[in-house]
C-alpha cells in the first residue's frame, strides 16, 4: 500500500526506505528526535522532502489531488489545538459531516457523554480521543472497504490504560480488515501485544524491521534506547518489559 524510498530531510530523516503492506499494524519505536514523527509526516505528504519518493498504491503521492488523498489517508499529528471553544460534536461534524459515531469508534473511544462539551474543557486524554475519532472518521468509508492508510503520531499520549487498550484493539481490528496502520509511541509492552511489524528508528533511519520484540536482544534494545531494559516472561511466553536508568 505504501512504499517510500530514500526519504531525506536535513536533520530529521536520513535516506530512509521501507514499505507498509495491506493489513500491517506497524509500531514505530525510537528515542526522542529519532525521526518517528517526521517519517509519519513524510508518508502523509505533509513534510517537504529534500529528496526521496513516497508511493501510495503504486502512484507517487504528488500525483494525487489533495481531496483524493484525504479520502483514504489520514494522519493525526501529535499537537492539536484551537483558539476557539468548539464542542466535540462540532469538531467531529466539521471533518466528517456526521453527528453520530459509528459503533466501532464509540466502543473504543467512548465519546457520547462528551459530545456537547467544549474541546478546551476536556482533559488531555479526552481531547486526544476526540482527535483520534476525527482523524479516523475522515477516512471511515475507506476503512469500511479495508483500503485506508492510517497514520497516528503518539495516539496513546494522555490516554489511561483502558483507553490505550481499547484504541489499539480497534486499530488491530482495522488492520485485520485490510487497512494499513502505522503508529509511533514509547510503550514496549503495547508494542509487544499489538504490533504485527515493528520499525526501530535511530538518527532518521529504520535500523531494524521485525515481526515482534521477541526476536531482538535486550542489549540491542538498550543500545537503541540508551536506557536499561529487562524483561520477564509471562505464562503465555510473551516478554513483559521494564525500563530503568543504567
Amino acid at each position, binding site marked *: 500500500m505504501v512504499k517510500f524510498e530514500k526519504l531525506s530531510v536535513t536533520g530529521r530523516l536520513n535516506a530512509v526506505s521501507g514499505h507498509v503492506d495491506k493489513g500491517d499494524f506497524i509500531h514505530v519505536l525510537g528515542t526522542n528526535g529519532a525521526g518517528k514523527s517526521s517519517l509519519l509526516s513524510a508518508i502523509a505528504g505533509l513534510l517537504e522532502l529534500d529528496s526521496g519518493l513516497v508511493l501510495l498504491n503504486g502512484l507517487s503521492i504528488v500525483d494525487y489531488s489533495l481531496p483524493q488523498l484525504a479520502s483514504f489517508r489520514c*494522519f493525526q499529528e501529535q499537537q*492539536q489545538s*484551537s483558539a*476557539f471553544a468548539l464542542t466535540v460534536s462540532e469538531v467531529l461534524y*466539521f471533518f466528517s459531516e456526521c453527528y453520530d459515531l459509528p459503533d466501532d469508534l464509540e466502543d473504543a473511544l467512548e465519546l457520547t457523554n462528551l459530545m456537547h462539551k*467544549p474541546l478546551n*474543557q476536556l482533559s488531555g486524554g479526552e481531547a486526544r480521543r476526540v482527535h483520534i475519532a476525527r482523524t479516523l472518521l475522515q477516512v471511515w468509508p475507506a476503512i469500511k472497504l479495508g483500503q485506508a492508510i492510517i497514520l497516528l503520531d503518539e495516539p496513546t499520549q494522555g490516554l489511561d490504560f483502558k483507553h490505550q487498550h481499547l484504541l489499539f484493539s480497534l486499530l488491530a481490528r482495522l488492520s485485520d480488515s485490510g487497512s494499513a496502520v502505522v503508529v509511533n509511541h514509547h510503550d514496549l509492552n503495547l508494542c509487544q501485544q499489538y504490533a504485527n511489524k515493528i520499525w526501530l528508528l535511530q538518527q532518521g533511519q529504520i535500523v531494524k524491521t521485525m515481526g515482534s520484540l521477541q526476536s531482538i536482544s535486550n542489549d540491542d534494545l538498550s543500545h537503541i534506547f540508551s536506557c536499561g531494559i529487562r524483561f520477564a516472561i509471562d505464562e503465555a511466553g510473551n516478554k513483559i518489559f521494564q525500563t530503568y536508568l543504567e
Partner: protein
Amino acid sequence: MLMCSVLLVLFDGLSAPWQNELDQQIIIKLRLPLVITACLVGAALSISSASLQVLLHNPLADPGIIGITSGASLCAALFLLLGGGLAPNILQYLLPLSCFIGAIISTILIFSVARRLAANHASVILAGIAISTISGAVVAWLHFFSDAQSMRNLTFWLMGSLHQADWPILFFAAPLLGGLIAYLMKQGRALNWYYFGQNSAQLAGLDVHKFQNKMLLVCALSVGAAVSLAGSIAFVGLLVPHLLRNFFGYDNRFILPASAILGACLLLWVELATRWFMGISLPVSMITASLGGPIFLYSVARLGKKRH
C-alpha cells in the same frame, strides 16, 4: 430582520413616498445609496473579520489587526491633506479611490513582509501590526502639520460615515463588494477545517497555500472597498462574529452568511438610532464603538459563564 431594517431606513419619517415627488427624490438620491452603503460595508467588514479570525487563528483579528484599515486611512489622510485644493466634486470621487489604493498597497506590503518572516499566520499578524503602527504614526504627523479645516475633514473621515457614497461611486463599488462577499460566503466548509491550523486543513484535502493567499486577498479587497465607501468603522468586525458564535456555535457555513446579514443590520440600526435619538448624522465609529464595547463585554462574560 434585514428587510425590515432596510424598509425602516428607507421610509422612516416620509408620510406618502409613493405620491410625493420630493419623498421619492429623497429615497432615490439619498436613502437608497445610504442603505446600499450600510449593507455592503457592514456585511464586508463582518464577514472579512469572521474569515480572518479563523484563518489567522486569532479570535481578536479584524481588518485593523492586519493593517489594511490603517493603510487605507493613511492614503486617505495623505489625499485629504495634499489634495485640499481640488474641487469638492473631484475630491469626492478621488478620495475613495485613494483609499482603495492604500488598502491594496498595505496588503502587498503585509504579504511581502510576512513572506520574509515566515509563511504562517503569526507572521501576517506581526507584519500587519508593524504596517498599522507605521501608518498610524504617519497619520499622526499629518495631523500635526495640517491646517484646521483639513484636520477637521480628516478626523471626521477617520470616524466613518455612511453618507459619503453616491450612485456613481456605488456603480463601481457595489458589484465589486457584492462579488467579494458572495465569494466569502461560500468558504464556510474549508474554513471549518482551519480551526486546528493549516496542517489539519491540508490533511482534510485543502490546498492551504492557495486558499490562504486567495482568502487574504479577498478580505483585503473587501475591507479596502468598505473603507473607501464609508471611512474607518470600528468594532463591527470584532463584535458581529463573536456575538453569533456565542449563540449559534462555530459552523462557518452559518456564521459567514449570518455575519454578513447581522453586520448589514447593525449599520442600518446605527443609522436609525442616530436619526431617532440625536436627530443628526454622527460619525458611525462613535456609535459602533460606544454600543459595541458593552455588548462585546457582555458577550465575553456570557462565553466565560458557559465555559465554567
